[in-house]
């Protein structure tokens, strides 16, 4: 080690002591005890989330093929585009992301509070109810009982089951927090605590409120967007804030930026929803409020971006070795990209083109896939070996999984971003007939199917590897599945 890097490490340790006690405590025994207290609960959440990942992404793939081959499987009512598409959204959002996210949050909570999980038995009830709710809701959509509002298609009964499931998830987290053995509360924990308070409130107001006409549309999109605000994004950010410093072995760059990022996020993101209805029949002031809030999102996003990138900066060579870090950095960079894109899309001049087109779908997958899903993959790679005390057997499969999903989602997003923009221009030009504007999107829809096929192939490999690990098949390893030996690093 050079002199310079030694001073860096010393300085880092000092900062870590001040702000992030959990990083410097090398009290492995406690960690093992903590991990054991959450093992079976986290594993159940992860395993069931992978089931929904598989089902949900196959639904997505079928929907994608149907957009260019409309007669394929055209005679089956259950598989028609208008049913399989909401089934896709709901299974990946409430099944995959929510369950994998819940598993990660509860593991992180007990690590960050430095106490074994409290009231752990509640989590079995939670996982059970949640899965039942998602299964029931998805079946209802496929068999024709959707409520007909995007993100809220599940019948109210399924919604109620999930809400109760969530309460049984939130209580152990709050109880563990109350029992905490740390003074400083790490930033990941802010996001976790906020989301367990926000989510149930949001879910209840949306599922059980009574509104009419355009107010209902406003409520629909306040909810739809806020599901990202209070749940999907905090999960992703809690993971990024935890794993970037953890794997790199350096504290997060700036505490004050974290603080600014969190509170500006809480303040502005909530008001974004109506940007889904720009140009629609809602009061102008309402739409304008949401546009302003969407643009203000640049503040929290840049705060988070600078913080993450300054933490990773100079350590990019670690990406060669650590699977977790590779997924985490990909996800963290996508967060910056998708958020800045989102702020731009809220501007009227840009929204005029992109609204109602495949461009929005590209944006959605940059968010829920390149950001959230990739971060969740990284978290699962990190957490599972600590729970099962068994390493991932084949580094090769991890690498394959990364490249298939990364390349897949890049093809997906680039194709729809270009194709959607072009579609928007054509649609806004009345010299082009509507059907021509449809026909011109087809090549891009084929490309999306290609990207989607790669992503699903990646998921199959991941799930296969997960099963091997749980069954303790394959070679036993005593070190993480580094892609190359990290020893090389000190030589560089």
């Amino acid at each position, binding site marked *: 080690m050079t002199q310079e890097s030694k001073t860096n490490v010393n300085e880092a340790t000092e900062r870590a002591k001040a702000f992030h006690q959990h990083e410097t405590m090398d009290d492995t025994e406690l960690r093992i005890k903590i991990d054991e207290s959450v093992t079976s609960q986290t594993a159940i959440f992860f395993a069931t989330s992978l089931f929904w990942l598989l089902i949900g992404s196959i639904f997505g793939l079928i929907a994608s093929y149907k957009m260019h081959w409309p007669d394929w499987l055209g005679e089956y009512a259950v598989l028609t585009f208008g049913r399989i598409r909401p089934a896709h959204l709901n299974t990946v959002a409430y099944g995959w992301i929510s369950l994998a996210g819940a598993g990660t949050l509860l593991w992180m909570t007990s690590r960050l509070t430095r106490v074994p999980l409290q009231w752990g038995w509640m989590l079995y009830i939670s996982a059970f109810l949640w899965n039942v709710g998602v299964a029931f809701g998805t079946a209802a959509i496929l068999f024709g009982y959707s409520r007909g509002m995007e993100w809220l298609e599940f019948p109210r009964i399924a919604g109620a089951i999930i809400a109760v499931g969530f309460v049984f998830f939130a209580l152990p987290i709050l109880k563990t927090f109350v029992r905490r053995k740390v003074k400083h509360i790490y930033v990941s924990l802010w996001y976790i605590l906020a989301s367990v308070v926000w989510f149930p409130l949001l879910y209840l107001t949306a599922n059980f409120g009574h509104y009419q006409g355009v107010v209902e549309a406003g409520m629909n999109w306040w909810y739809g967007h806020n599901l990202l605000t209070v749940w999907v994004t905090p999960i992703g950010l809690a993971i990024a804030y935890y794993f970037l410093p953890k794997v790199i072995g350096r504290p997060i760059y700036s505490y004050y930026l974290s603080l600014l990022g969190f509170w500006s996020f809480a303040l502005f993101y909530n008001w974004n929803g109506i940007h889904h209805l720009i140009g629609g029949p809602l009061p102008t002031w309402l739409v304008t409020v949401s546009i302003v809030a969407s643009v203000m999102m640049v503040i929290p996003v840049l705060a988070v971006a600078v913080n993450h990138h300054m933490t990773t900066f100079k350590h990019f060579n670690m990406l060669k070795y650590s699977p977790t870090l590779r997924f985490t950095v990909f996800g963290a960079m996508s967060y910056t990209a998708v958020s800045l894109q989102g702020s731009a899309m809220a501007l009227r001049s840009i929204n005029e083109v992109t609204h109602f*087109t*495949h461009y929005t779908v590209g944006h959605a997958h940059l968010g829920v896939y390149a950001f959230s899903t990739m971060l969740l993959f990284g978290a699962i790679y990190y957490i599972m070996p600590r729970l099962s005390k068994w390493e991932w057997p084949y580094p090769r499969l991890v690498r394959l999984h990364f490249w298939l999903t990364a390349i897949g989602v890049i093809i997906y997003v680039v194709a729809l971003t270009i194709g959607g923009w072009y579609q928007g221009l054509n649609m806004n030009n009345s010299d082009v007939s509507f059907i021509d504007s449809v026909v011109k999107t087809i090549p891009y829809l084929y490309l999306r199917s290609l990207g989607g096929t790669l992503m699903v192939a990646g998921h199959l490999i991941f799930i296969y590897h997960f099963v091997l690990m749980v069954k303790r098949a394959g070679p036993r390893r005593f070190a993480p599945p580094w892609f190359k030996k990290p020893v090389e690093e000190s030589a560089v």
Partner: protein
Amino acid sequence: MMFIRSFVFFFGVLATLLLGWAALVGIPDIMISEVKPPEGLERYTAEELFGRQIYIREGCLYCHSQQVRPEGFGADQDRLWGRPSVPADYVYDRPHLLGTMRTGPDLMNIGVRQTSVSWHMLHLYDPRLVVEESTMPPYPWLFEVKRTAGPDEYILDVPGNRVPEGKVVVATPEAEALVEYLLSLDRSFDAPQREVTNDDDE
């Protein structure tokens, strides 16, 4: 100290969410609930509501919006999709079906633009029978292929030799209701006062 900080934290977190709700849902609810049904907008009949239910069941809303944008924002006006939509157009709509995607055209005024029952029937049975390049899904389960049609049943005039010899394609009550609903989509009456939409009008 710790206690106060936690309190401030949870209070802040709650306050931000409730503020957002009040601004985007609560206040608009109070303002817009005063909107009266305009003259010219009729309540849906039972048949139309049943058709609307089929529209929701088959997920037409994931490809079709029901909101017309004003002049100067997109080409809705040039494409003759109808006058710009206002909150009063939706007073009878539950759930709302505004939609956010236009894989197909806006349907807010499809009942004005396309009045032919036979066109709609064929289009739902197989869109490519009427629009060769269409990418819309077919809905064959809304129809029945059988020997003879009942007295009140609608028989489709399917071109070519798609239908087996000696059989007819008839619309189920679901298809009839859906078409009835589509034909009811007509907001060509004068827009009522727009001050709720445009607070700077007067």
